[in-house]
């Protein structure tokens, strides 16, 4: 009897091993993605790999969307739109601005700044919120107002408990929103100050839990990999939990290099984020990622990446931190720069009914550009369940770049809103009825 059990156990183990081998072999290789991405050895030549977007006008072209969908610009000539928010009455708020301005410390900072600025808009950031309204529901947003101005590089937006929360690059502020208003009645109230010294990664992403008790703020690192000194990284590269009533803050999860968007998965009420990982380790390292944000978890930056893979550039290193590094849930192509995250809502046509829309701003640290599109990662039971598919593409053509997606938002009326900070446009994609 015991021998038979043993043989059975061995057979089951062998079958499992074979199965997992087969599954691994048949995983589609459409770019890096999923729970077990390939991690090539780090590499860096004398110069980092570079491919800077060369901006061009749309000239009648527009992004491509899946069959059965249409897309159109609902607002143009904005002042660098980043993230959007759909208010309860259907109005759309757009956060506009450009933050940062980290001091030049090395000749490299100076030169890299010049090169990278070529791939972005020359427009001056608005430091404002624009409100768009489609009063008659025909899909054209004929109403446009400046809802609030004189903000400081607003980025993250959230609506909870009847209040509007805005994450400026230096503070989380609150507006007492009144339904239907097109202009804030009063200046915002500061809920909590946010770390803003240097602000190498200046964007402050934001999400609110269902009852509006806690807000979650994503705060990026102050460097690529600690080259401004580790002392500059206090309160950086993490997600803060903020008590909406008192403004008290505490780290919720750490080691997240640049968590540029936060959103709650609607089925499980679990917080998720997209993170921009480190540069200058090669074209396919380190994968950016989509991950649930586990309370208290350490995701590696700066000491390690994708689990306990030490980054030799960080001195002094920290073996304990390397070993404590958890693996994120789902890799996205290295350097594709996810900046937008929104979960699907029931009612969208297949295959977009359950999953995450992700805006990929696009790469610089790679000769062959990646990103520059909006992808969709299908979910099942609150977890990623397959390879990503393109949702909105065609932001590049003939070696030129017409647009760069940032924030992605779901409109409960059944539309996907995409902010584009290169052509300063807000796009709206809808399924045909």
């Amino acid at each position: 009897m015991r021998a038979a059990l043993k043989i059975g156990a061995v057979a089951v183990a062998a079958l499992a091993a074979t199965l997992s081998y087969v599954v691994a072999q048949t995983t589609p290789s459409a770019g890096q993605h999923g729970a077990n991405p390939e991690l090539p050895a780090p590499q860096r030549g004398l110069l980092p790999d570079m491919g800077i977007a060369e901006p061009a006008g749309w000239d009648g072209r527009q992004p491509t969307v899946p069959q059965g969908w249409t897309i159109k610009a609902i607002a143009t000539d904005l002042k660098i739109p980043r993230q959007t928010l759909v208010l309860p009455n259907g109005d759309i708020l757009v956060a506009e601005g450009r933050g940062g301005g980290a001091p030049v410390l090395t000749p490299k900072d100076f030169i890299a700044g010049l090169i990278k600025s070529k791939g972005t808009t020359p427009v001056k950031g608005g430091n404002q919120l624009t409100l768009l309204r489609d009063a008659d529901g025909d899909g054209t947003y004929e109403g446009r107002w400046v809802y609030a101005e004189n903000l400081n590089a607003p980025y993250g937006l959230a609506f909870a408990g009847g209040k509007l929360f805005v994450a400026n690059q230096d503070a989380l502020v609150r507006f007492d929103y009144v339904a239907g208003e097109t202009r804030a009645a009063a200046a915002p109230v500061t809920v909590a100050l946010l770390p803003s010294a240097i602000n190498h990664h200046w964007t402050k992403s934001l999400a609110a839990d269902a009852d509006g008790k806690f807000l979650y703020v994503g705060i990026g690192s102050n460097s690529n990999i600690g080259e401004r000194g580790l002392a500059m990284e206090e309160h950086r590269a993490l997600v803060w939990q903020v008590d909406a009533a008192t403004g008290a803050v505490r780290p919720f999860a750490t080691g997240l290099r640049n968590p540029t968007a936060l959103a709650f998965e609607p089925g499980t009420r679990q917080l998720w984020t997209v993170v921009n990982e480190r540069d200058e380790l090669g074209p396919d390292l380190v994968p950016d990622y989509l991950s649930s944000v586990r309370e208290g978890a350490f995701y590696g930056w700066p000491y390690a990446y994708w689990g306990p893979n030490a980054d030799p550039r960080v001195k002094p290193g920290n073996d304990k931190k390397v070993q404590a590094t958890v693996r994120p849930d789902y890799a996205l192509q290295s350097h594709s720069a996810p900046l937008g995250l929104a979960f699907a809502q029931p009612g969208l046509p297949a295959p977009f009914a359950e999953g995450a829309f992700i805006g990929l701003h696009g790469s610089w640290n790679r000769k062959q550009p990646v990103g520059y599109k909006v992808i969709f990662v299908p979910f099942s039971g609150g977890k990623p369940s397959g390879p990503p598919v393109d949702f909105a593409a065609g932001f590049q053509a003939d070696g030129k770049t017409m647009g760069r997606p940032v924030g992605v938002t779901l409109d409960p009326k059944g539309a996907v809103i995409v902010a584009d900070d290169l052509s300063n446009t807000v796009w709206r994609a809808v399924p045909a009825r």
Partner: protein
Amino acid sequence: MHAVIAAAALPLFVGALLADLAYSGSFQIQWINFSSWLIAGALLLAGLALLWAAVDVLRRRPRGGMVYLLLLLATFVLGFVNALVHARDAWATMPTGVALSAVVVVLAAIASGVGLAGWRRRAA
């Protein structure tokens, strides 16, 4: 005269080497920031001297000028590579950076010596 400019690059290269050693020992980032700027300044001076020396050799072909020119060229090229190595982030600069800094200091010292000797000969 260009030999004097070339010689002026030497203390900057020496400064970069010292800063690299300080970073290697302390991991204090500010030291490689110093080092990066010192190398950039040294390259500016060495580059000027190199141009001038090249024009000199083409025009007058003085004896020993060719050796000096080649030494200066080697200093500049390796110095430039060193600048690119120093443009890597944090510890990625090391240990290549400090090794190159040391080699460049030796090259710059010899180039300056040869160049200044030529200058003294001509002045005498």
